């Protein structure tokens, strides 16, 4: 049986790891390569690096970073943020990433998912969705693009389903309402999406304590949990997280 995965997420801006609340008020959390290596050594199952600067100028910086990460990190890692084209995905995979996540560019051009999946395999393509609770349609969420700054009319559950059909191998689902609040994941959202697709869903946004992680798996139906604040700032070690979840009955790589 596959274990449930614990995935620290490193938001990278100007070559530093940062973490904010609701995508704002960024706080420095260290060097991406050093922090990545530390997580790799201490038992994380995977890592996600998101370039939140995502400007043309930052692209080269990210490729350099991915190469250095690959020399020091011996677990699978995903890279995303501002990825626009199959050529960029190719470059990131060649630099050492296992998977690449796409977000805004896939919303603008859904064929990007299909092209990337056909060329590199579904397992390399992660569809990242930034979701915000709809104010007008209760029980629904809107897809937001451009680092969450721009809401669209697209329904999150429908978009996830479409992403799977196009060939995405995984959904990285971030609740913008919960992100950085430490108040728990949006498990209604996680459950709605995980019930709608057969590919793994990574729950993201809101982890504040160990029971939140358990709830994302059990209530939300997530296959993996993403976290940042609670591990970057030393509140919990990966081992503490995994022991807690194992003791509550979840299959863990421990």
């Amino acid at each position, binding site marked *: *049986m*596959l*274990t449930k*995965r614990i995935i620290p997420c490193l938001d990278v801006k100007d070559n530093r790891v940062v973490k904010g609340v609701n995508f704002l008020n960024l706080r420095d959390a260290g060097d991406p390569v050093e922090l990545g290596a530390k997580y*790799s*050594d201490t*038992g*994380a*199952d995977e890592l996600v690096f998101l370039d939140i600067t995502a400007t043309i100028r930052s692209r080269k910086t990210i490729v350099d970073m991915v190469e250095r990460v*690959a*020399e*020091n990190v*011996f*677990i*699978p890692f995903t890279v995303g943020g501002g990825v626009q084209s199959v050529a960029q995905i190719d470059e990131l*995979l*060649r630099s*050492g990433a*296992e998977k690449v996540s796409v977000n805004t560019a896939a919303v603008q051009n859904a064929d990007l998912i299909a092209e990337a999946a056909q060329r590199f*395999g*579904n*397992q390399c393509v992660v569809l990242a969705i930034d979701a915000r609770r709809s104010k007008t349609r209760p029980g629904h969420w809107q897809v937001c693009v451009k680092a969450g700054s721009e809401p669209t009319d697209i329904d999150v559950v429908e978009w996830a389903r479409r992403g799977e059909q196009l060939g995405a*191998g995984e959904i990285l689902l971030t609740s913008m309402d919960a992100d950085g609040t430490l108040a728990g994941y949006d498990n209604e959202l996680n459950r709605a999406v995980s019930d709608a697709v*057969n*590919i*793994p869903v990574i729950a993201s946004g809101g982890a504040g304590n160990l029971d939140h992680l358990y709830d994302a798996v059990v209530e939300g139906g997530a*296959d993996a949990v993403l976290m940042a604040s609670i591990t970057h700032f030393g509140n919990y070690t990966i081992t503490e997280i995994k022991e807690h979840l194992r003791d509550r009955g979840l299959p863990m*790589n*421990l």
Partner: protein
Amino acid sequence: MVVVIDYNVGNVKSVCNAFRHIGCEAELSRDPAKIGRASGLVLPGVAAFGYAMEALGDAAEPVKQAVAAGKPILGICVGHQLLFDQSLEYGPHKGLGLVRGNVVPIPPEQTIPHMGWNLVEFPEDMDMELFSGLGSAKHFYFAHSYQAEVSDEQAHIAYTDYGSPLTAAVQKGNIFGVQFHPEKSGKQGLRLLHNFYDLCNRKASC
């Protein structure tokens, strides 16, 4: 010196990075002379089987000869699958035929690919030199859609449970294959690579 076979497939660099990280000398090469002198060989691989076999090309013969002469070899993922007779992936395609068996699709009842960390159970008759010192945690990182169906009576097989048992590792004398990615399996994976390196050096100095 372990030689990592250089053929144009993904993860060749990751395997070299991993050996460097644990202080083991490994060289990336497809030169028959270097393959002949190596203490052991690693055949990595992320690609479709047919593409990988074609990319291996004229390096296949020196690899087969070295293995026949008793040199240890470790196949990883598609490199592990190449050890067998043939694969049905976009196939059939012929493999190296070092271990009897075919590479077939994972049963479709589960999500494909089989991707993530899974527990590997090692049988008692397996040479545990490669897998020693791993403690109770024998989880490794997998990412594959095909698996080896082993028919070789001399081969020992370790399995992982994914609804049905999948071949996770195979060993036949000096031939080792792992379906998972040790270079991406954290500490356990690095330990396995170190074990292989030590095993090669011991055999070479005998």
